[in-house]
């Protein structure tokens, strides 16, 4: 069996537009005055056909509309895309089709259309349940709108998740405890809880560099935030299954698990990345980041991929570690073995186990909650030892 089949096969579709750019966001998102949705639809369909030509005989497990703000897409565009997908691949019986949505009233009005088009899961960018913080985070919605949108989403879709950003400026542990408590009440079996990260190239990044971004937690407080989050979600029955993702068992994002399990995924749309195993070689694909450049390339009948690169064995192993150690299920030892050509790891990581950073079973090697806190170092350590 080809290795990717352990993870499955998914399709990621990137919609690059937002109504406004948030100061913390370093995703490939753009604000455009006018978007010709018809043109974009055609381009996506063309790319689906192209990828389908390479992978058409596969069963598709998941589709994910990410962005940007995919809830700016018209329902009929989503419908046309899903229709073409259904004609291109055999859809898994339990196919998961997720769309990221802003929790505003305009978007909520479209939920029924998305549902009708085939979307069965939404992920709402709630970010905070506090109005003052929402404003600081540059969000256009308020907490009440978010609660309303969540209610509508829960009525409309089989599965609903929402995102929160914590460890925010001037946030105290008890603030977060209260807010997360409310969120757990609202949750429908899945939550993505991200510690605020200041990325360079963002408005927050510039402010931090200028020394003007104050009130961020220090390392100790940020550890306390993380630990509080772990214990509260666990107590509520939606424990972490990845660094920042929490779900009741069985309700994990299957699409994201494809990434973390090093499955195959096609990436369509500006700046989308893909991993496809073709003819025994694992190919990394990348498309042009600029929306207009991508659109005009595809409209001209050319491939949207700006890069196709064959990964060598050590790169595949590196990605396997980088992605897989994020999950609580950890790495499959048999897969690790075949990727690095080593049979027995029992003595390699003994000390890391003694430090409580990893735990092992005969079939799995996983980072503990403690290990996940220093995951970047831990991965570096494990990767170096496996060389």
């Amino acid at each position, binding site marked *: 069996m080809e290795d990717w089949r352990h993870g499955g096969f998914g399709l990621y579709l990137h919609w690059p537009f937002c109504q406004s750019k948030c100061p913390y966001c370093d995703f490939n998102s753009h604000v455009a005055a006018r978007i010709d949705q018809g043109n974009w639809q055609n381009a996506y369909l063309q790319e689906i056909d192209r990828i389908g030509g390479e992978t058409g005989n596969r069963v598709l497990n998941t589709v994910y509309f990410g962005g940007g703000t995919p809830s700016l897409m018209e329902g009929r565009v989503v419908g046309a895309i899903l229709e073409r997908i259904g004609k291109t691949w055999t859809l898994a019986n339990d196919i998961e089709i997720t769309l990221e949505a802003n929790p505003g009233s305009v978007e909520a009005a479209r939920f029924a259309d998305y549902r009708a088009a085939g979307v069965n899961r939404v992920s709402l960018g709630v970010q905070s349940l506090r109005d003052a913080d929402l404003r600081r985070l540059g969000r256009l919605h308020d907490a009440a709108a978010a609660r309303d949108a969540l209610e509508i989403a829960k009525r409309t879709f089989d599965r609903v998740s929402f995102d929160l950003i914590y460890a925010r400026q001037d946030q105290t542990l008890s603030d977060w405890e209260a807010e997360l408590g409310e969120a757990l009440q609202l949750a429908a079996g899945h939550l993505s809880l991200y510690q605020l990260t200041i990325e360079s190239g963002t408005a927050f990044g510039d402010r931090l560099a200028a020394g003007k971004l104050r009130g961020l937690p220090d390392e100790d407080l940020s550890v306390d935030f993380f630990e509080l989050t772990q214990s509260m979600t666990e107590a509520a029955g939606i424990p972490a299954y990845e660094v920042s993702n929490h779900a009741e068992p069985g309700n994990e994002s299957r699409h994201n698990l494809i990434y973390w399990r090093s499955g195959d995924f096609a990436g369509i749309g500006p700046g989308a*990345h893909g991993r496809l195993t073709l003819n025994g070689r694992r190919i990394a694909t990348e498309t042009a980041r600029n929306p207009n450049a991508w659109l005009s390339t595809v409209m001209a009948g050319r491939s949207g991929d700006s890069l196709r690169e064959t990964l060598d064995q050590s790169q595949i192993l590196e*990605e396997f570690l980088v992605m897989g150690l994020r999950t609580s299920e950890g790495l499959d030892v048999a897969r690790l073995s075949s990727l690095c050509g080593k049979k027995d790891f029992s003595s390699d990581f003994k000390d890391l186990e003694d430090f409580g950073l990893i735990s092992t079973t005969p079939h799995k090697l996983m980072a503990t909650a403690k290990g996940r806190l*220093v995951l970047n*170092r831990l991965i570096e350590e494990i990767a170096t030892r496996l060389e």
Partner: protein
Amino acid sequence: MTELSQIRNFSIVAHIDHGKSTLADRLIQMTGTVAERDMKAQLLDSMDIERERGITIKANTVRIEYPAKDGQTYVLNLIDTPGHVDFAYEVSRSMRAVEGSLLVVDASQGVEAQTLANVYQAIDAGHEIVPVLNKIDLPAADPDRVKENIEDVIGLDASDAIPISAKTGLGIPDVLEAIVTRLPAPKGDRNAPLKAMLVDSWYDSYLGVVVMIRVMDGVIRKGDRIKMMQTGAVYGIDKLAVLKPKMVDIPELGPGEIGVLTASIKQVRDTRVGDTITHERKPCDKPLPGFKPAQPVVFCGLFPVDANDFEALRDAIEKLALNDASFSYEMETSAALGFGFRCGFLGLLHLEVIRDRLEREYDLDLITTAPSVVFKLHMKDGEVRDLHNPADMPDLTYVDHIEEPRIKATIMVPDDYLGDILKLCQDRRGIQLNLTYAGNRAMVEYDLPLAEVVFDFYDRLKSVTKGYASFDYQLSGYREDHLVKMSILVNEEPVDALAMMVHRDRAEARGRAMVEKLKELIPRHMFKIPIQAAIGARVIARETLSAMRKDVTAKCYGGDATRKRKLLEKQKAGKKRMRQFGKVEIPQEAFISALKMDN
């Protein structure tokens, strides 16, 4: 061959910057020894490093022909002696090769400590000494005060001191005339068996080893079979020449003459400064007195920053050693720093010069471990062992007592700074020997442990006196003291490269400084790391480097895989530049900073 009466051999004694090299250049220029267009500033200091630091490391010589006022043409041989205490033995040999000295003193500054040591060497060698007051053209020049200073400090009659400006050429003819009239001609017997002193030797990439000699008795000719009396080695002379300062072949050298020879000698190591050269067939009955082999006194480890450069370092060290018999080396392995060399030097400056040359001429990045001196270990079984590397310190139960080398230091300083100097010397376990004044300058003599001086004494001295102090020393012997080996443990594991010998009373302070510094330099790990200084099993200072608590990326999805993979590759490459210590990785930079001599 030149008549004895028409030869004058001399050296120039001066403090750094007092104008020795400029005066030498001026003498060469004014006698037309070197064509004007070939003159470059400071002709005799040939190495870049010498010119940059304003010091002479190897003795150089030049033969000048000077038509004097008496109508005769004299041959003047100038030996430019090394101007630094590290090369005191070389200086003493060079001094024995000539009969007189010019004592050059800056007319605005007076006598400095370094001048003093060299002038005493000249006096010891029986030299006639002509005082020269340089920089007389400077507004700050005060020749009368400086004359008085020479008489006070050195006890030399300075009434006939020649005022000059080497820079402008003022007074240079007077110097040339004084060399002929005031310095004695050499003595020697042309018919006696050959007796010549090996003054210096160096490696020339075209000629091989070049040996500089001073003939005492007899005559040496091209083709002669000669014997080195100390080493017993025999060679045939391929080339005989004088330096003007370019090599000019000469058929023979007689008594009183100075020149160079080549004789298919492979390495400088095969020649010993101070050795006596004689004929193989008809040797002289006894060698010149005073020979002693070069003895390294300061040791340190030299390691390549990049372990792959070890072979290049070996190659470079071997090449340098060809030209410098006074520096010793042997391979060393350190758990922290990998493969390198333990090298011995005549002193700190010698160490710095060699390290600079390795880095500059051979393009190597080096880690220099803390310099250490040679301790004498008196074992309980009566054996006496030399300890060059603190890491080799045996179990104390076998050691009866430890002796360390002491120096006699002479420091001259404006009296404003005297208190600071005394405090510095006391802090370094010094014993005051003498304190005198010449004008507003104080001269202090201290008995100090060499180990305290190699650490960062120069830098402290410079900073507490704003650079106004001058300092010189000579080794004065060994003395027992309460010395201990201080180990540094990182995560309970001793780091051999950081071990040092310290006085028991100063161990806590030194240990504390070291662990504090390391705590700053070692990056945090996933676990906490104790950093300790210990004497034997007893910990005397301890710091704990707390564990890295959080380092995780919040978001990582399909689009992040490439970026995260590339980051991981970069991290792994960075890890390779770390030195593994048990479970702890110490970056190269940490070692360099912790071991830096000026810390």
